[in-house]
């Protein structure tokens, strides 16, 4: 018969106690180890993040350095190009100044004809190949009534640059009230032009028409001829298409950025970039309308004195860069573009390409009108000419806005996707806010329940409980077998294991409750974000419709423009004067 004495039982109980202590220590060490592992992982993440930040800073630094270098080089080269321009064409400036100087001296009558002759002939010697020098010699000869020299000088000027000379004398004669002769010059000039290859100086003619510098007859000659050109060139669909495309690009650059109050939708919808593009694309109509209104607001600043107006136009003609300067002017524009783009050569190239047609040496008449409307500064068009050009090109602008509108309305996404908290939803024509919110709620509830279900009476507590139960069975078995000692021993083991299991399983309901509470919070926040996002979607749709609704207004505004209304009458030929 097996007997267990009390001291032995005491030892077993101590051993179990020690075992428990050891297990507690092991569990504590495990926890400490876990903390260390977590720390190491966190340090790794932090190191990676710091490395990435360092790389980003390095890239940024390298880019800044590159931009700085480009900017420096562009500055240096710009100075060189300007020096070359000054060296090779700088003396043109003197001749140019002499042109208006001579005319104004004639008005005042305070300069001797001999001085005029001497100066103009001197400049003739100093500026070979330049058309304006013989033209001024001719002008001085005309003033002196030296017909022979005037004719020879004129022939030389015409030989050097027929068009500019014709235009120069047309304007000078008009300035001096010789209207009939001015009309002959202007007619000669206009019929010589090829509307498919006009030189840049033609914009001076447009200026003269829009500012009312030409007399009634000369204005009609220009308007009738240009109307024929427009009709002829408009037969070529490709030429018209080019203008419409250019206006479309110009209008598209007027986009307004989306309101920054849209915060939730961008964070929950992968469709956001399309929605943003859609809205911003629709804003061009409003911006274009505003631009048109500002261009046409108020009166064009014009002098009431014909002579002052003519001098402005004449300045435009003589300072308008000549063809031989074009390569250097082009280089100058390139360097300037790099400086404007703070050293970013790609951006500079893009900007140049955008305004390229305005720099071409020759253009067709339709492109010239577009240039005057889109890039008035580059093409040398005055504010009055810009109005005239926009009114003349209104059909292209209307078509361009129409194309942007078609592109915009056909880009409406059929479905707006939503992703939040691992849930995916979509808004289409039949979507219902409550149904979407309920679906999201169900998704989060299901996730919460899954998380709650993970917190179960499994693993170590379950193993301890099962072992405890086994010990209890053994205790019962040995007790029935009459072995009181073993029964007590197993009973103690069962009690110890059961106690331990209870200890471990005690926190489960509280943890479950905590998870449920977190789930409820998460659901409330997610549903609020979803509803906020949907509200923003409704707002965005309304804003988009409002932006697009300006399109007909823009069309009406454009339809109301009449180019002939922007070809002003000369101050000496107004009715009632």
């Amino acid at each position, binding site marked *: 018969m097996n007997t267990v004495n009390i001291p032995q039982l005491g030892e077993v109980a101590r051993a179990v106690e020690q075992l428990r202590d050891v297990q507690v220590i092991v569990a504590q060490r495990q926890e400490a180890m876990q903390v260390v592992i977590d720390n190491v992982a966190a340090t790794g993440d932090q190191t990676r993040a710091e490395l990435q930040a360092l790389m980003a800073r390095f890239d940024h630094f390298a880019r800044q350095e590159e931009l700085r270098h480009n900017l420096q080089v562009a500055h240096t080269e710009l100075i060189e190009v300007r020096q070359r321009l000054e060296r090779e064409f700088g003396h043109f400036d003197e001749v140019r100044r002499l042109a208006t100087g001579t005319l104004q001296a004639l008005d005042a009558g305070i300069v001797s004809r001999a001085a005029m002759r001497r100066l103009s002939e001197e400049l003739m010697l100093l500026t070979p190949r330049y058309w304006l020098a013989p033209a001024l010699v001719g002008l001085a000869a005309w003033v002196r009534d030296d017909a022979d020299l005037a004719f020879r000088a004129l022939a030389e000027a015409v030989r050097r640059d027929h068009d500019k000379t014709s235009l120069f004398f047309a304007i000078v004669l008009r300035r001096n009230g010789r209207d009939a002769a001015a009309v002959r010059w202007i007619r000669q000039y206009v019929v010589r032009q090829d509307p498919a290859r006009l030189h840049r100086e033609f914009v001076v003619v447009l200026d003269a028409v829009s500012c009312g510098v030409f007399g009634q007859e000369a204005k009609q000659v220009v308007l009738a001829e240009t109307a024929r050109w427009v009709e002829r060139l408009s*037969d070529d*669909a490709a030429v018209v*298409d080019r203008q*419409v*495309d250019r206006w479309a690009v110009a209008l598209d650059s007027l986009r307004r950025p989306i309101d920054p109050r849209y915060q939730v939708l961008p964070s929950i919808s992968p469709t956001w970039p399309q929605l943003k593009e859609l809205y911003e694309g629709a804003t061009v109509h409003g911006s274009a309308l505003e631009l048109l209104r500002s261009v046409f607001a108020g009166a064009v600043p014009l002098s009431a004195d014909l002579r002052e107006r003519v001098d402005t136009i004449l300045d435009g003609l003589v300072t308008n860069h000549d063809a031989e300067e074009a390569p250097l002017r082009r280089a100058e524009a390139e360097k300037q573009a790099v400086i404007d783009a703070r050293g970013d050569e790609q951006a500079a190239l893009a900007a140049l390409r955008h305004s390229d047609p305005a720099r071409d040496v020759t253009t067709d008449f339709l492109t010239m009108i577009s240039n005057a409307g889109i890039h008035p500064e580059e093409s040398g068009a005055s504010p009055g000419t810009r109005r005239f050009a926009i009114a003349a090109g209104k*059909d292209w602008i209307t*078509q361009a806005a*129409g*194309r942007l*509108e*078609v592109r915009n*309305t*056909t880009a409406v996404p059929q479905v707006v996707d939503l992703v939040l908290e691992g849930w995916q939803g979509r808004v289409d024509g039949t979507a219902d806010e409550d149904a979407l919110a309920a679906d999201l709620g169900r998704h989060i509830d299901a996730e919460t329940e899954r998380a709650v279900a993970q917190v179960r009476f499994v693993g170590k507590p379950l193993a301890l409980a099962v072992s405890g139960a086994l010990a209890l069975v053994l205790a019962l078995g040995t007790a029935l077998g009459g072995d009181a000692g073993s029964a007590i021993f197993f009973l103690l083991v069962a009690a110890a294991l059961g106690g331990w299991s209870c200890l471990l399983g005690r926190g489960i309901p509280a943890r479950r409750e905590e998870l449920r509470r977190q789930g409820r919070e998460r659901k409330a926040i997610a549903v609020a974000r979803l509803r906020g996002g949907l509200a923003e979607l409704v707002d965005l749709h309304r804003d988009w419709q409002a932006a697009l609704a300006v399109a*007909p207004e823009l*069309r009406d505004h454009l339809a109301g423009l009449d180019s002939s209304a922007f070809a002003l009458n000369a101050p000496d030929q107004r009715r009632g004067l």
Partner: protein
Amino acid sequence: MPRPMLGNTSATSSRLSGPRATTASNARHRVSTTKRSREYQDALRALDTSGHVGAVDLSRLVDDVRREFDDAHCTTPFGIVSRCYLGEPYEVHTLALDHSILEHYELGRPLPGGLERARPVAVSAVYAAVEVYADRLVCVRLDGSVVALGSEA
């Protein structure tokens, strides 16, 4: 090389394939961009209910449509695509001007002969119809004004 046998060419598929199939004079390549007339718009609207229109009425409507371009001395589109208001399952209908054929298309059924590219615009409620030319589309707004899309469209 053997001569192709009669009937083995894809006559039906090339029926709508471009200006060769139209009766427009080669001299008139200009696409009309002026506002479309009231008669033209009425004819387009009438086509939508033409599930019940007889052959005589259809040819009269087609004549109205053709007259719009003939009067302006402009090229005639080879097809017109419009949104269909007959209801499900129909989405758009097409009028092939060369053969005066009107056909309604269900959602998802592709349009033949280069007309499909007009579909995205035609289904929009902003446009009454889309005229399809060999190299471009012209969208007709509800008020009759038009937008000619470039040759890339």
